[in-house]
C-alpha cells in the first residue's frame, strides 16, 4: 500500500510543483491588484472548463507532444536539441509547399505526403547540426541556436517572396502568408471544436517512438551511444552515425509538428516575422514537456497535456482578469523552474527505496540492481 502511495506521489510530483509555482504566482497577482482566486478559476476554466476548452488544450498540446517525442530520442542519445523552433519552421515550409504544388492530387494522398515532407524538412534541419557535431565537432547548442535564426529569415524570405499568397502579392500591404490550402487537404476536425487528427497522430507516434527506442536495434544503439559512447564504439557501433541519427530524428518530429500545425490549425503558413509567431514557442516548450515526462514517450503524453493546459489556461486568465501578458510568461517560467526542481525528491526517494531494497535482499546481489536503476531513473 505504501509503495502504491509513493508511486502516486511520484506521478503527481509535477502537478504538486505546478501548484507551488501557482502559489507564488498568486502573490504576484495580489501585488498586481488582481484576485488570485478569480484568476486561477479562469485558468482552470480556460484549460478544462468545457469541451471546447479541453479541445483547445489538446490542440495546444499536440505540437508539444510531437516535439517532445523528438526530444526523447535526442536526449537519450545524449544530444541536446534546442533547434526545435527552426526545425518546425522548415518542416512546415516543405509541407506547405507540397500542399500548394500538388493541388490536383487526392486529399488523403497530399496529407500523407505533406506529413512526410514535414518529417523530411525537419529531419534535414536537425540532421545538419547532427552532421556538424559528429564530423566537425561543432557543438549542437551553437549550431541549433544559429539554425533557428536562419530558419526564421528563410521563412520570411519565402513567405514574402516566392511562396506568397498570389492574392496578397497584388496588395500594397503584402502580408507574409501563403495561399490557403484546399479544403480537401485539411486534417479532419472534431467539429465544432478545433481538435484535429494531428492529436491522434501524435499519440500513435508516441507509442511508435516507445517501440523504436526500446524494441528496435536502432533505438538500442541510440541509447547505448547516449549512455556510453566509448563502450559503444568498442562494441562496434558507429557512434558518429547514431549521433547524426539522433538529431535527425529529433528534428524530423519537430518538422512534423510544424506540418501538423499548418494542416490542422491554420491551413496556411503565416508569419509576423518572428519564430514564435508561427511556432508558439513549441520548440522550447516541447523540451520542457519531454522532461516533465521523464524523457519517456508515453509519459510525454500527459506531460504535454498538462503543459498545454497551463498555456491555454494562462491566456484565458489574462483575458478574464486583464493582467499583463508578462505575468503569464513569468508564471510559465516559475512552473518550469519548480517542476524541474522537484525532480530531486523523486530522485532521492528512488535512491532510498533502492537502498532499502538492497538491505532487504539476502544474499546481496550487486549485479542485478544496476541495469534496473538506469532504466527507472531515466
Amino acid at each position, binding site marked *: 500500500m505504501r509503495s502504491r502511495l509513493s508511486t502516486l506521489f511520484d506521478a503527481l510530483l509535477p502537478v504538486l510543483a505546478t501548484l507551488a509555482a501557482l502559489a507564488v504566482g498568486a502573490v*504576484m497577482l495580489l501585488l*498586481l491588484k488582481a484576485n488570485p482566486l478569480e484568476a486561477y478559476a479562469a485558468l482552470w476554466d480556460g484549460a478544462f472548463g468545457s469541451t471546447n476548452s479541453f479541445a483547445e488544450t489538446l490542440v495546444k498540446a499536440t505540437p508539444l507532444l510531437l516535439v517532445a517525442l523528438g526530444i526523447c530520442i535526442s536526449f537519450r542519445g545524449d544530444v*541536446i536539441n*534546442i533547434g526545435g523552433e527552426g526545425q518546425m519552421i522548415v518542416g512546415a515550409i516543405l509541407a506547405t509547399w507540397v500542399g500548394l504544388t500538388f493541388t490536383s492530387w487526392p486529399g488523403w494522398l497530399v496529407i500523407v505526403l505533406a506529413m512526410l515532407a514535414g518529417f523530411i524538412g525537419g529531419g534535414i534541419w536537425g540532421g545538419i547540426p547532427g552532421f*556538424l557535431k559528429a564530423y*566537425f*565537432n*561543432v*557543438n549542437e*547548442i*551553437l*549550431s541549433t*541556436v*544559429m*539554425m533557428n*535564426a*536562419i530558419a526564421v*529569415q*528563410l521563412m*520570411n*524570405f519565402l513567405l*514574402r*517572396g516566392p511562396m506568397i499568397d498570389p492574392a496578397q502579392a497584388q496588395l500594397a500591404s503584402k502580408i507574409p502568408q501563403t495561399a490557403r490550402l484546399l479544403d480537401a487537404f485539411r486534417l479532419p476536425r472534431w467539429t465544432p471544436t478545433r481538435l484535429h487528427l494531428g492529436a491522434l497522430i501524435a499519440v500513435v507516434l508516441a507509442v511508435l517512438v516507445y517501440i523504436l527506442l526500446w524494441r528496435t536495434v536502432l533505438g538500442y544503439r541510440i541509447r547505448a551511444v547516449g549512455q556510453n559512447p566509448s563502450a559503444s564504439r568498442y562494441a562496434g557501433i558507429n557512434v558518429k552515425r547514431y549521433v547524426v541519427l539522433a538529431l535527425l530524428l529529433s528534428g524530423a518530429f519537430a518538422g512534423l509538428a510544424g506540418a501538423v500545425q499548418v494542416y490542422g490549425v491554420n491551413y496556411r503558413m503565416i508569419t509576423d516575422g518572428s519564430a514564435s509567431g508561427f511556432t508558439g514557442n513549441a520548440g*522550447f516548450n516541447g*523540451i*520542457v514537456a519531454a*522532461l516533465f515526462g521523464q524523457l519517456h514517450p508515453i509519459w510525454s503524453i500527459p506531460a504535454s497535456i498538462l503543459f498545454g493546459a497551463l498555456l491555454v489556461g494562462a491566456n484565458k486568465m489574462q483575458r478574464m482578469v486583464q493582467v*499583463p501578458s*508578462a*505575468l*503569464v*510568461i*513569468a*508564471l*510559465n*517560467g*516559475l*512552473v*518550469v*523552474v519548480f517542476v*524541474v*526542481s522537484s*525532480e*530531486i525528491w523523486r*530522485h532521492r526517494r528512488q535512491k532510498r527505496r533502492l537502498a532499502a531494497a538492497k538491505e532487504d535482499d539476502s544474499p546481496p546481489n550487486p549485479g542485478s540492481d544496476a541495469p534496473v536503476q538506469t532504466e527507472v531513473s531515466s
Partner: protein
Amino acid sequence: MISSLFSVTVLVGILASGIRLATPYLYAAIGETFGQRSGVLNLGVEGQMLLGAFAAFYIVFVTGNLALAVLVAMIVGALMGLAMAFVTVNLQAQQGISGIGFYLFGVGLSDLLFQKMLGTVETVRGFPKISIPFLSNIPGLGEIFFNHNLLVYGAYLLVPIAWFVLNKTTLGLKIHAVGENPEAADSLGVSVAGVRYFTIVLGGTLSGVAGASLSIGLLNVFQQNMTSGLGFIAVALVYFGGWRPWGVLGGALLFSMVNSLQLWIQVLGIPIPSDIAVMMPYVLTILVLVASVSRVRGPSALTKPFERED
C-alpha cells in the same frame, strides 16, 4: 556598388559598430564561460540580462546615478544567479530546462516591472562616449577603438582579466577541476558546491551588467524583450570560443562585425534581399567553426549535476 563597401568610412564604420554591438555579448558570454567551465550550463542568461537592464535603467531614470545603476544591475543579476545556483547545485535540477524557466521568468518579470513602474517607453541620459585623449585622434583606429562609453571598454578589459583568473590562479584551477572531474576535486577537498555557486553568481552578475550595457550604455532606452535572443547567442558563443575568453572574444567580434556588415550592405543599397542579409552573421558563425581546425573538448562534467556519495 559592392565596391562602395571598400571605402575607409565604411570599413571604419563597420569595425566601430561591431565593437559596440559585441559589448553585451561579451559580458554575458564571459560570465557564462565561468559557469560552464565549472560544469554548469545556464540558458537563463537572457532573463538575467533583461532584469539587469531594467534595474539599471530605472535607477538612472529616477536618480541619474550611473554608477549606482550598474551596481544595482549587478546585484539583481547576482540574485538571479543565486536562485539558479540553488536550483542547480542543491536541487540538482536539469540545467538546460531550469535555465529556460529562469529565462521566461526574467522576461516576464522585467516586462511587468517596466509596465508597473515606468508605464511607457522613456529615454535617459546613459553612459556618455569617452574619447581616450590622444589615442582617439589616430585616424581610423581612433574612431574604432577609442571612442566608446565606459561599459564598452569594461567589456574588453574583462577578457584578459577572465583569462588570467581562469588560467593563472588557484581559483581557476579549482574551477577547471570541478568542471572536468568533480568527484576527484571533491576528494581533494575542493568544495564543488562552493565553486559552482561562485561561478553561477558571477555569471549572473555579468549578465546583469550586460543588460545595463544595453539599456544605459548603448541604447539609453528600455523596452520589453529588447534583448531579442542575445542571451542565447551569448551562450552559443561560449561553445564557439572553446570555453576560452579570447575565443569568446573572437566569436563575439565575428558575429557582431558580420551583423554590422549586413547593415551597411543594406544601407548602401547593395541588392541583397533583407532576409538573406540578416542571416549572414548566423551562417558565418557556423561556417567559421566548421572550418576552424581546433577540436576543443568541453568540460567533461558540463550539465551533469554533482552529488556527493555519502
